[in-house]
Structures are given as structure tokens and as C-alpha cells.
């Protein structure tokens, strides 16, 4: 039997309270809750997650998706409205670095107070304080009031304190994104070390890179609902595709694609096919084989050119293939063209395939037709960027970097970094 999870939730939901009027609020408060006049506002519903010892859960979602509510529930700062959760061991919730610091007390006193707040004994904290001040690099200022400190120093102290109490579960809300680059690196290193020691982590971040690199499972929340859950690369891919889509930057306005009419050259249908003959496809794993079928009509039987483009939400043209570029010409009064794209190299994202019908010189565009639905590409890997570039590494650890045969010095420096 597996070890008991560090964090478990069961159909977890949270509704905040809203009141139709001030009087309704007064009624509920003054009756000590006997009269329930509030209207629930659901911030989160039906969340089921399990974080095993040593596991790391990444939470992504747009603003107002319920991420902070979820973390508050995990931290025990607010009770659930429905469902249940269970947390094992000491939790260090860093919903904000330096929360609870008092500006008039010294760094040493604040470290002690925060450590006790995080569940450490006073005696234990007195022992740990020197260690914390050392790690945060603030020993010289340890006995001056915190208001004389820079905000970066205070954040370092907060982070060092939370690490020092050796929690079983650490909850981080965007804290990896604060502070200068040096501090960010220290944070990431410290979090990695914490995980190597068997600590569990819940991380909310807008940096999908951090989620993919640090976490072993991810949860995508949207308007309090769980949209996707599981492998971080898959979940963050789905999220970024959805996010780009929602930003209103549609590559192609399907309604504006005007049909030139039955007596002009036109595309009647375009669809994306997989390798199996199982009909149109709208989701694809990066690296799979892909084909685009274009059904066209040409009443005048004039010579034509065909093309297929893939456009991302931000209107970036990411790939294009044309018969003209490959020295081909389309003739006849109707037909089906099939473009095969083996090992489709685009990484996770949402793309719009568009078929183009042009005159024989490729100047006049007769008709453009996007597929009925966007193509959603998912990637099971942690690779970054738009495409997977074929590559090969050569690692030379002996001689000087410039001596590496056939490679620029810059590349080998990167390889060693």
C-alpha cells in the first residue's frame, strides 16, 4: 500500500459570501449566523487532487480562476464549503513572502515570529535563527528594524524562514517570480533541494516553464472548474493553447472567408487527417504524421496553385507549403489534393490550417478556406518553443571551447553551462 498522501482533496469546493444588501449582512452577523442571508459565490468546485510524499503539483489558470482560493484551502486559512481535504504534516504556506512581518521589529525577531507562526517551537526557532539569517544573507542587518530593510532583503528572510522550518508541504504562490534574478535563482535552487529531500510542493505560477520543470502533475483551473489535470506538459500545453485562443487573437476570421461562387475556382472542403483513415482530426500529438486534404473545383479548368498554411493565434505564420514552391501545377476541373506532413514538428499550441487556391503564377488568390476547427497540438515532452528542431549534441569537456570541430564556440559554451 502506498504511503498516505501529503495532500488529498475530495470533491473540494469553496463558495465565498456575497450579500444582496448591507441590511442582509447586518442580519446574518447580528444573529450570529442563525439567519443565513448570504448568497454563495462559487470560487471553486469539484477539485480532486492527491499529492504523494515528494510530489509537486502545479496550478495554472487565468486571474480569478480560483487558484488563490485553492491555496487558501490547502493552507487551512479558510474552511471548505463542500467536499473535504486532508493535509499531513507541517505546511509552510508562502502565499506572500514576508506576510506577518512587523516593520518595527528586527529581522531576527521577525524570523522568530514567522517561524513560530509556521508551526515551529520558540526554542527550536532560536536555534535556527542564525542559520536563517546566514542563508538569507542579511546577518549584517539582523538587529535593525525591518522598515529600514530593502523589500528584497525582507523577501529573502521570509523565504529562508519558511525553508528552515522543514515543512512536509510547501505552498508557493508566485513567489518564485519576485525579487531580483539572483534571488529567483536561489529560490529555484532551494525549492529543488527541498524536493530532493523528499518535500512536497504546491506551486501556483504564471510561468508555465516553471510548472513543467518543477512539477510532476498539473491542474488547470478556469472559473473554479478543473479543466485539465495530470501530466504538466500536457496540461500547460492545453492551457496555453486555450489562453492564446481566448485572447481574441484569432488567426483567421472564418466568417470573412467569402466563397467566390460556383463559376469561379474555389475550395469546397478542407480537412486535417491523421494516419489512420478515421475522418477529420482536430487534436494531434506533436511528432505524429499528418495530412491535409483539399477538395477543389475549377469550372474554367485554368492552371492553379494550391497551398496550405498553419497560423498561430497571434497571426504568426508558422509553416507554409505550396505546389508552386515544389514546382507543381494543378490542372483539371475538380479534384482532391493531399498534402502529407510526416512527423509534424510543431509543439503544443492551437493552430489554424488554411488552404489557399491561387492562379498559376501564385499572385492572384482565388480562395482561402480554413478548416472547420482549429488544430490542437499537444506535446508530451517538456520541450519549449514553437517547433521541434532536429538536433544533435556534441559535448567536449576536454580542450578549449573554440577547438570544438564544426561547432561555434558559443554552442559549446551553452553545452557546458
Amino acid at each position: 500500500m502506498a504511503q498516505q498522501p501529503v495532500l488529498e482533496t475530495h470533491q473540494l469546493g469553496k463558495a465565498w459570501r456575497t450579500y444582496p444588501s448591507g441590511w442582509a449582512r447586518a442580519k446574518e452577523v447580528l444573529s450570529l449566523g442563525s439567519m443565513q442571508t448570504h448568497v454563495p459565490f462559487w470560487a471553486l468546485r469539484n477539485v480532486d487532487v492527491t499529492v504523494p510524499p515528494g510530489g509537486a503539483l502545479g496550478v495554472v489558470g487565468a486571474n480569478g480562476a480560483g487558484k488563490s482560493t485553492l491555496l487558501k484551502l490547502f493552507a487551512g486559512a479558510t474552511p471548505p464549503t463542500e467536499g473535504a481535504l486532508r493535509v499531513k504534516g507541517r505546511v509552510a504556506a508562502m502565499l506572500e513572502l514576508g506576510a506577518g512581518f512587523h516593520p518595527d521589529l528586527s529581522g531576527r525577531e521577525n524570523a522568530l515570529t514567522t517561524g513560530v507562526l509556521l508551526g515551529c517551537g520558540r526554542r527550536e526557532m532560536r536555534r535556527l535563527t542564525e542559520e536563517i539569517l546566514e542563508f538569507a544573507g542579511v546577518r549584517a542587518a539582523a538587529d535593525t528594524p525591518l522598515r529600514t530593510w530593502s523589500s528584497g532583503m525582507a523577501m529573502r528572510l521570509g523565504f529562508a524562514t519558511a525553508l528552515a522550518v522543514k515543512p512536509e508541504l510547501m505552498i508557493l504562490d508566485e513567489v518564485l517570480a519576485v525579487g531580483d534574478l539572483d534571488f529567483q535563482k536561489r529560490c529555484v535552487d532551494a525549492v529543488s533541494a527541498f524536493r530532493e529531500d523528499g518535500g512536497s510542493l504546491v506551486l501556483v505560477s504564471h510561468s508555465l516553464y516553471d510548472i513543467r520543470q518543477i512539477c510532476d502533475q498539473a491542474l488547470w483551473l478556469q472559473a473554479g472548474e478543473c479543466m485539465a489535470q495530470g501530466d504538466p506538459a500536457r496540461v500547460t500545453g492545453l492551457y496555453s493553447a486555450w489562453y492564446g485562443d481566448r485572447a481574441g487573437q484569432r488567426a483567421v476570421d472564418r466568417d470573412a472567408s467569402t466563397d467566390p461562387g460556383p463559376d469561379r475556382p474555389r475550395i469546397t472542403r478542407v480537412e486535417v487527417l491523421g494516419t489512420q483513415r478515421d475522418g477529420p482530426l482536430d487534436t494531434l500529438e506533436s511528432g505524429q504524421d499528418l495530412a491535409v486534404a483539399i477538395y477543389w473545383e475549377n469550372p474554367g479548368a485554368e492552371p492553379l496553385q494550391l497551398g496550405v498554411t498553419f497560423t498561430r493565434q497571434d497571426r504568426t505564420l508558422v509553416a507554409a507549403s505550396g505546389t508552386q514552391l515544389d514546382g507543381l501545377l494543378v490542372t483539371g476541373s475538380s479534384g482532391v489534393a493531399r498534402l502529407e506532413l510526416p512527423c509534424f514538428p510543431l509543439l503544443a499550441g492551437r493552430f489554424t490550417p488554411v488552404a489557399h487556391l491561387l492562379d498559376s503564377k501564385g499572385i492572384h488568390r482565388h480562395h482561402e478556406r480554413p478548416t472547420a476547427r482549429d488544430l490542437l497540438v499537444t506535446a508530451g515532452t517538456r520541450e519549449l518553443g514553437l517547433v521541434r528542431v532536429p538536433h544533435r549534441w556534441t559535448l567536449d569537456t576536454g580542450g578549449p571551447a573554440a577547438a570544438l570541430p564544426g561547432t561555434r564556440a558559443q554552442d559549446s559554451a551553452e553545452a557546458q553551462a
Partner: protein
Amino acid sequence: MASIPDSTWIQPSVTGLGSVLRQVTGAPLRIWHVRDLLMTGLARDLRGRVAGTVLGPLWPFAQPAMLLVVYGFLFTTLLSMKLPGATDGAGWSAYLLVGTLAWSSVAECATRGASSLLEGRELVRKLAYPIELLPLVPSLSSTLLLGGGALVVIVLGGLSGYLPWNPAALALPLILILHLALVLGIAWSVAGLNAGLRDVGQVLPLLLTAMMLATPVFWVASPEVIPGIEPWLPWIEASPFTCLLDAWRAVLCAGRSEVPCPPLGQALATLVPYSLGALALGRTALARLEPLILDEI
């Protein structure tokens, strides 16, 4: 594979009778478990009171000492106000001094208690600080300072002959416990109410002023001093604040027989039900309001 949630799971909070009862009766044990947190908060509160001052920790003792000198000077030399049956103003000034010290602690605990949850909201929101501690910290620190002030009054009063030493002063720890229970009960309830409904904090200063004037802090509840007070006496005597001040005067002013107050034992015994009642009611109010507070804060 989903396990059925049992008692080890954190589930939606309920405010039924049993749950409230558990919260109220479990409070001492819960507070004991987080005593380190309480001590840290208390140290922070006490330090924060004198932070940046030159006299520092001497201030809590200097203030009652100065009050004693000022009252003593005012009522023995400047104003010729005397208690019934007294030959000089010393008794009257002792009566006022003790009343002022005790009442200002009550007012402070109510005021600071009312704002404690709102001021500590970051701690609750970000660090899941137990909400029952937030009103407890100022109540405890105020009571401790009142204890310090009472010691100053006992020592200086005895040395100067202004308040002759009397064994009743040995009951100081007892009256401090009863005082803490009463003010904590008030602080818990106003803290909960004000966190849910800010109007409570607006009304509170008015209520406190009215309460101060209706309590014999600056006057003596006796027909000899205030003619025509007889019909109100039962009400005044039934007030928990009257009982509190009577008990304080019984402890501190026993050396001056002209100061009107009930015998020590009777004064303390009358105060006990009020203190325990306030404590239970205050914690019940907070328990009932806790789910609302944790959502709203």
C-alpha cells in the same frame, strides 16, 4: 479509489450546538497547544507598545506612577472633593485612580479587540493564524500591564502612606484573572461582530463612553453623594462593570476605610459569574461567526 472522508479530513464548518460547544470548551486546550504563538504575539505586542521610546519598558510602570502623583496632587491640594466621612481628598483620589486604571483597560480591550481581526487579517489569510488568539493578545497584554500598574500603586501608595498596605492586595492575581476573563469575553464577541459588520466598530466608542458614564468610575453610587439615585441603584449594582470596579477597589483600596466598596470576598464572588459568563458568551459568538469571518476577512 476516492476514499470516504472521515474525521481526519477538514470538512465544511458547521455551527450547530455540539460543534459550538466543542469549540468553546476546547478553547483552553487549543490555546495551550499554540502557546508559543501566543507568547510570540504577546512579546510583539508589548514591544510594539514602547517601540521607539527612550524609557522603553519603564513606560507601563511610569504611567500609573504619574497618574498617582497627578491625582494625589489634584485632590489633596487643588480640589477640595472628599468622600463621605473623609477628612482629606486622599481617599477620593485613590477611588478615582483605581477606577480609571481598571476602566481604561476595559475600554482598551474592547477597542483593540474589535479591530484585532481586521488588523491581523494578513496573518489569518496568509498564514492561517488562529483567530481566537488575535483578540486574546491585546486583552492579555492589557491585563498584564494593568497588573504592573496595580503593583506600582500598591508599592508607591504604601510607601507614601497614600494607600496604606493591606493584606487584601494579595488577591491581586485573582482579580487579574477575573478581569482578563471579562475583557477577553468582550474582546472575543466584539472582534467577531466587527469583522462581519464594520458598523459595530463605529458604534463601539459611543457605547464605551455611555458605559463609562453609567458606571461608577468618576462618581460614587450612594444617595449621600448623588441625591435621588436610589431608583437606579439596583441597575447600577447589577452591571458587570460596577462589580469589576468594586472588586478592584476592594483589592487595592482596602487600606482606606472611607473608600466605599463591598468586602473583598463578596466583591470577588459577585464578579465570578460575570467573568465566566462573558468568557463563554464571547467565545460562543466567535465560534458562531467563525465560518463567516474566515470567508470575509
